[in-house]
């Protein structure tokens, strides 16, 4: 069904996603048409190959020493032991027993140095792949992938963030110059978007009839006045309608109880299960936050609790995606704004630490079991293959088949999609 009843021909239209993946540059203001790619013929099969991204953001800064890069028996190592994984030679902290069994699906980047110990700026570096710069805001990975991987024919929004209970939910500005269209729709505590459900007293026939009348009015108005703005307005109602028709996607109680049990019956388990439902329904990018790892005191107790919540649903998710044939098309990244200090402070805490920490990738385009980068014996410095947020950003895009060296063109000015001073970490890409 066509979205608009008049012909689409303005210069803002008709730039195809394939055009982007190919050699042509594309305007950032362009709404990417589908070129019939995602929505049509054998859509389901092609849809499976449609690449998606899931970012699991461990808010506050997870300890690399209690997760991906343990240093047992050193002055910084803390009390925990390490355990073997499904990858010979790779050991992780004993707080991740179920994750250890998925390690053949996971690539570890152990030499991350983002050189920024402040929460907000650290998160910006990790989500935009750029250091904050005065005068320009760069779009977050969610907006970038929603724009470049998504299509206008998608039923659901391209960029959704599942927020932990009580976590602030703003974020339309995360899309920066790509525009709020690609900014995240927030699901507070995994609840459906506000006003998604049709109010009592409005029947389906009455709703359809009023929609028909509204469209007629719009067509008349737009005949001689159409603009990118009127088009976007019209389209936003189409999108709302499509999302409304799929409101079941937001309802995790529709899942088999056995599946729900595998993810765990707590907030984060529920949120990751919701993420899988969303990805499966065609959402391009989902971000799930897990709070809170900012363990300035009692780091070890806190990590027992937090990682106890993280380990099961994360392992279940990888298994679940693999079983459904979605893992090879879904990039799953576990990141934080930074890691935690090797030095244990007098409150048994670890403080902010960005000089040597680790990130885990799995799924689309990722070489499972790979480990890249090294830190020294007690984890205080990167000794091999140091990377920063820019390298990681390049890697995410390459993993889902995009070319991070191309440009966006806000206000007709070229802005490289990823930081040109960095490049992808080829060692972990298939």
């Amino acid at each position, binding site marked *: 069904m066509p979205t608009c009843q008049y012909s689409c021909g303005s210069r803002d239209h008709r730039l195809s996603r394939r055009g982007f993946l190919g050699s042509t540059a594309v305007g950032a203001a362009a709404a990417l048409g589908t070129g019939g790619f995602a929505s049509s013929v054998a859509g389901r099969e092609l849809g499976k190959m449609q690449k998606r991204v899931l970012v699991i953001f461990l808010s506050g800064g997870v300890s690399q020493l209690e997760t991906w890069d343990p240093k047992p028996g050193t002055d910084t190592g803390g009390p925990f032991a390490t355990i073997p994984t499904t990858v010979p030679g790779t050991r992780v902290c004993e707080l991740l027993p179920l994750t250890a069994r998925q390690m053949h699906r996971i690539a570890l980047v152990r030499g991350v140095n983002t050189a920024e110990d402040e929460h907000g700026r650290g998160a910006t570096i990790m989500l935009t792949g750029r250091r904050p710069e005065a*005068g320009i805001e760069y779009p977050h990975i969610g907006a970038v992938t929603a724009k470049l991987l998504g299509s206008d024919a998608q039923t659901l929004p391209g960029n959704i963030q599942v927020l932990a209970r009580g976590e602030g939910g703003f974020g339309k500005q995360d899309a920066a110059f790509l525009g709020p269209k690609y900014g995240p729709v927030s699901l507070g505590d995994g609840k459906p978007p506000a*006003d998604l459900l049709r*109010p009592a007293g409005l029947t389906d026939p009455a709703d359809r009839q*009023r929609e028909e009348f509204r469209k007629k*009015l719009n067509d008349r108005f737009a005949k001689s006045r159409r603009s990118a703005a009127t088009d976007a307005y019209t389209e936003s109602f189409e999108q709302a309608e499509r999302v*409304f028709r799929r409101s079941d996607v937001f309802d995790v109680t529709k899942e088999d109880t056995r599946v729900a049990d595998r993810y765990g019956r707590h907030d984060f388990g529920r949120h990751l299960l919701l993420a899988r439902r969303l990805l499966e329904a065609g959402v391009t990018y989902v971000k799930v936050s897990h709070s809170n790892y900012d363990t300035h005191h009692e780091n070890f107790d806190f990590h027992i609790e937090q990682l106890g919540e993280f380990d099961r649903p994360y392992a279940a998710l990888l298994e679940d995606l693999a079983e459904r044939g979605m893992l090879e098309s879904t990039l799953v990244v576990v990141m934080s704004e930074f890691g935690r200090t090797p030095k244990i402070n007098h409150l048994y805490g670890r403080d902010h630490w960005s000089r040597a920490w680790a990130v885990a990738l799995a799924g689309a385009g990722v070489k499972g079991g790979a480990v890249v980068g090294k830190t020294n014996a007690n984890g205080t410095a990167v000794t091999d293959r140091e990377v920063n947020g820019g390298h990681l950003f390049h890697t995410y895009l390459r993993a889902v088949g995009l070319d991070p060296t191309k440009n966006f063109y806000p206000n007709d000015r070229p802005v490289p999609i990823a930081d040109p001073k960095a490049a992808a970490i080829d060692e972990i890409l298939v």
Partner: protein
Amino acid sequence: MPTPPRALAALAAIFATAAVSSAAKPLHARIDRLIAAGHAGYETQVAPVSTDAEFLRRVYLDFAGTIPTADETRAFLVDTTPDKRTRLVDRLLAGPAYARRMAQVFDVVLMERRGDGKVPRAAWEEFLRTAFAENRPYDGLVREILSADGVDPKARPAAKFYLDRDFEPNLVTRDIARVFLGRNIQCAQCHDHPLVESYKQADYYGLLAFLNRSFLFPNANAPNAVLAEKADGEVNFVSVFDKAKKQGTTLPHMPGGKAISEAAPPKGKEYKVAPAANVRPVPAYSRREQLARAVTAADNPAFARTAANRLWALMLGRGIVNPVDLDHPGNPPSHPELLDLLATEFAAHKFDVKWLLREIAQSKTYQRSSEGPAGDTDPPPERYLVAHLKPLTAEQLAYAASQATGQTDADRVALGKTATEAGIDARVAARIGPFRAVFAGQPGAPDTGAITTLDQSLFLKFGPSVRGMIAPRPGSLTDRLGKLTDPNAITDELFLSVLTRPATADERKDVTELLKAAPDRPTALNELVWALLASAEFRFNH
């Protein structure tokens, strides 16, 4: 403080060559001449003059922040006097809604949806409303804002610009430059602007030097904090590009302007109130005190130019310099002579905001239809050939929806004999909150009127705010429509109330058929009102 006549004369002299042929003509005529000048084929490409209905809705939204009632629309449409548009403009500029609308506009311009931690919203809105109701000269208003320190409780609202930016010096510097000088010089904080040659690091620090001695007292977190100032402290800067790390310093100055010289006070006399524990120091010589005068002085032409450009953009939907905070030689104005004219005339008329808005509203350029000549749906926006579609702001949307659905009329009925305009306004104002939450811009960013997010369409589609407005109450639109039987009368009342125009023959036919087939008339009427409210025609000021 009045603009020094000598500087005005200088400005006028610069402009004299362009203006000499038409100096006697009113500004609105000169606007039209300069818009058409140098544009080959202007007459054939330009849109016709707006219809009366289109003009009525547009000027209402611009000057009253809402739409007219169906009765006002009827009266305007049957009025055959030739000067009815000008009289409408005058009536709206004199009406109480004008000050409210301008307060809403300048709240966003000045505060960009920041929080209200130190100056409560109500006091701030009242301050702005009073200023615009009195038509206080714009330069005077800006001086009031930039010289406020928050100490005198009565004058505290004016200090909101500083206080609710927590007086972060770089933020305040950036926003003074953006809001009052039309330039975003943030990049020049660390080095000369890489892309804009005229934005210099020394200019950035010249502005910062007015502020660098000031701070919040007793501390930045105190809700009752006021500004205080030390008697010493210089700005020092090094370009991050400079390998030699040569340190620069500067006295306070406007970008491109002369430094304000200062004599060192005699030793021991640096303070009127000397710093001590829990004492707000007051220096003998205040740098910050120089700022308000320096920004608005006639030898700082960026001020009048930016003000004129912002008011023009408010009316026309696009700045002559566009975006309004990127004025530099690499981003030239679309109509340089016109911008000079507006700035000069605005200053010459003592920054009389109503006068400038009235002149713009009377121009043919403002009164163009948003329907272009057939065949051209994509005219170059900077030529002003066709009226721009301006998305309604969160506030306009709330007020216009209240008026369209007859909630405002229902409020009047409900208040009965006690109804006053202020009382009705308070009820409408109480409904803005949910609209702001969904339609307002992001804190600290300009309101772009972005209108494409899912939460916005769901809000309009299913949200309780809009539904609540449509539900019949005595005096409301659905209530009035329910009492009519003739489908044509229903259609007319509906279209006049919501879209400020008579229905077309097609629309009458559509409504008639729809009502005939409707199993339940009240429901059908409700949803008809919704369809008009959710239409693009309602969403934009067109």
